[in-house]
């Protein structure tokens, strides 16, 4: 590949960059700067009285034990959702990648859940696990398990983890399958001839070759659990019981939208943004070294 190709002059490169820059400025930098500005304000819902309060919204957050709890909930929630959704999707992809009859049907069925909106996914899981209405919940109770996510925080957390995982498996599956199919068959065949068993072939050849896909998915999944799961939590548990499933993004959503506390909500989104930027930086700095392209 020719590595030193470049444009002479500045006009063309800038013109080519312009659409991307414009989109980033309009859809990211502008709203983000608005959030930063809003986080320094104390304002009523209608915006008729505004005071500049410096870092008071942040101080209140750090003084609030609920915020620390939301932080811990987020750590638990995001770890389990990422681990579950990545490993289960990888297992499914490996299975679907084999030469089996009707593979196309399996693949289609596995991809379908991705088309379901988060709130709908939440409702589906309620239908299964609501302690009075849910079929599966009744089954659990019949087995003597006192299943009650309405009052038991661990049950509620498990439920939102399952719902969020289920929602994300399809997406991960799609990328893993594409990654698997791009691995040259000749490499695998050579290993078979050398007498390598399936498990060994997977861990020494397939998985390392999948590492760029895995890394990409890890980043995407972390962004997903941090920013995209409030619809599921809202429909399944509403952050309860007693704050057991209130994650950082859910707190931003419920304080800002339900409570009209715009300053506090903005301060939380700024912190959340900083956290995710930090996490992504760490991933690219340290984990990406283990990725071979």
């Amino acid at each position, binding site marked *: 590949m020719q590595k030193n190709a470049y444009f002479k002059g500045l006009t063309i490169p800038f013109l080519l960059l312009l659409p991307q820059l414009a989109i980033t400025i309009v859809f990211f930098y502008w709203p983000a700067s608005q959030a930063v500005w809003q986080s320094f304000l*104390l*304002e*009523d*819902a*209608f*915006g*008729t*009285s505004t*005071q500049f309060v410096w870092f008071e919204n942040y101080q*209140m957050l750090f003084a609030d034990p609920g915020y620390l709890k939301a932080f811990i909930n987020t750590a638990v929630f995001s770890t389990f959702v990422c681990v579950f959704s990545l490993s289960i999707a990888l297992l499914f992809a490996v299975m679907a990648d084999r030469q089996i009859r009707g593979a196309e049907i399996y693949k289609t069925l596995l991809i379908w859940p991705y088309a379901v909106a988060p709130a709908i996914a939440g409702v589906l899981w309620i239908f299964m696990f609501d302690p*009075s*209405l849910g079929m599966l919940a009744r089954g659990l109770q019949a087995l003597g398990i006192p299943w009650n996510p*309405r*009052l*038991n*925080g661990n049950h509620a957390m498990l439920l939102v983890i399952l719902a969020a995982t289920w929602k994300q498996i399809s997406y991960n599956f799609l990328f893993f399958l594409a990654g698997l199919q791009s691995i040259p068959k000749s490499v695998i065949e050579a290993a078979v001839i050398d007498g390598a068993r399936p498990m060994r072939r997977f861990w020494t050849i397939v998985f390392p070759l999948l590492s760029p896909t895995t890394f990409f998915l890890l980043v995407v999944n972390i962004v997903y659990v941090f920013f995209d799961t409030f619809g599921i939590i809202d429909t399944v548990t*509403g*952050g*309860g*019981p*007693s*704050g057991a499933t209130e994650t950082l993004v859910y707190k931003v959503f*419920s*304080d800002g*939208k*339900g*409570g*009209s*506390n715009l300053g506090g909500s903005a301060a939380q989104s700024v912190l959340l943004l900083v956290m995710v930027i930090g996490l992504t930086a760490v991933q690219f700095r340290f984990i990406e070294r283990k990725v071979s392209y």
Partner: protein
Amino acid sequence: MTMKSRILMSIAAFALAGASPALAQTEIQWWHALTGANNDVVVKLTEDFNASQKDYKVVPVYKGSYPDTLNAGIAAFRAGQAPHILQVFEVGTGTMMSAKGAIKPVHEVMKEAGEKFDPNAYLPAITGYYSTAKGEMLSMPFNSSSMVMWYNKDAFKKAGLDPAKPPKTWPETFEAAKKLKAAGYDKCGVSNAWATWANIEQFGAWHNVPLSTKVNGMAGFDAVLNFNKSPAFLKHWTNLVELQKDKTYDYSGRTNNGEGRFTSGECPIFLTSSGFFGNVRANAKFDWGNAPMPYYPDVQGAPQNSIIGGASLWVMGGKKADEYKGVAKFFTFLSNVDRQVKLHTESGYLPITKAAYEKVKASGFYKDKPYLETPILELTNKAPTDNSKGLRYGSLVQIRDIWSEELEAALNGQKSPQAALDAAAERGNQMLRQFERTAAR
């Protein structure tokens, strides 16, 4: 209401909006949150008003759930595009009245338009909620409900209880729940929807116990929550926590999601809104009835009167005088006795004027349908006191979440009832203090 008819309606609304200047009509935008049969009532009501005169045209627009409608109104106001009339649920009352310039009080609208308006014509328990401490009406009551105790008559028979005599007090209710449990309703004897409405807000009013200083917030934003110091609350919460252990009482969540437990037959005694009527009628496969909320007989003054739920109509600020005149005319039209009678008997919402209630009562309507009178009997049980007029706290949506969290913490054994009540009041006060600073007065 189906998606298709909703789309058709919005297209119709747009078409009408485009046509109106040619007819020289003043258009009044009305954003609301009612679906299904209640949406049809709204549409019919505006059609009747529009046909009754030529100068004004009220255009109803469905904007989603109650919180969605409130948020849409707030966003529209910030963008300078607010509707004339915004339907806001009772929880949003504090938020609405605190925004100077964002709203125009109804008593002003009526006075400036020269419409005949007598606040005493309305049921005091309803208007009290939406009036200032001085008695000035801020918003127009529209669809009001209250909390009642629904019960399963078939289950009562099965448990050897008299279906004609539902329990009156909490001790009787808990005893009935225990008998029902023994008769096979072992998952839940008694429960409620709207956890804080039932166990804090209505409970305080019904027992004439204050939730806070300053007439439950109606006399000023500097109210301080103090219900944690009341023995009545401690007693009730302690009972709930104790009975949750064997499911004589079983928690059903913060909103009305758990209402299905009543209609499915799982919970034979269930406290929730009188507005649950339509659902019960449609889905309950057993004989049912309702009764006033239970009370503790040893609390002095109990039962007092209940407070309302549902929504009212707020007039947004910054509109033209002529438009306000149209709004006032529409409100006069709404308050008409026959119209209120019809609204009440068709939708199950409460009549807002005394005359309408008297008329329905005289017609013998309640003989066949006593369950539609229960909430009115509760609301008018006694003249409202400072503790039972209603409550008005800013950020009440968030405060309710905090209260639910603390109740849940008590019910699942993380905290003692007293510690949970203390935390509920203390954390609520933090929210109130923050709101006090942003509220423009």
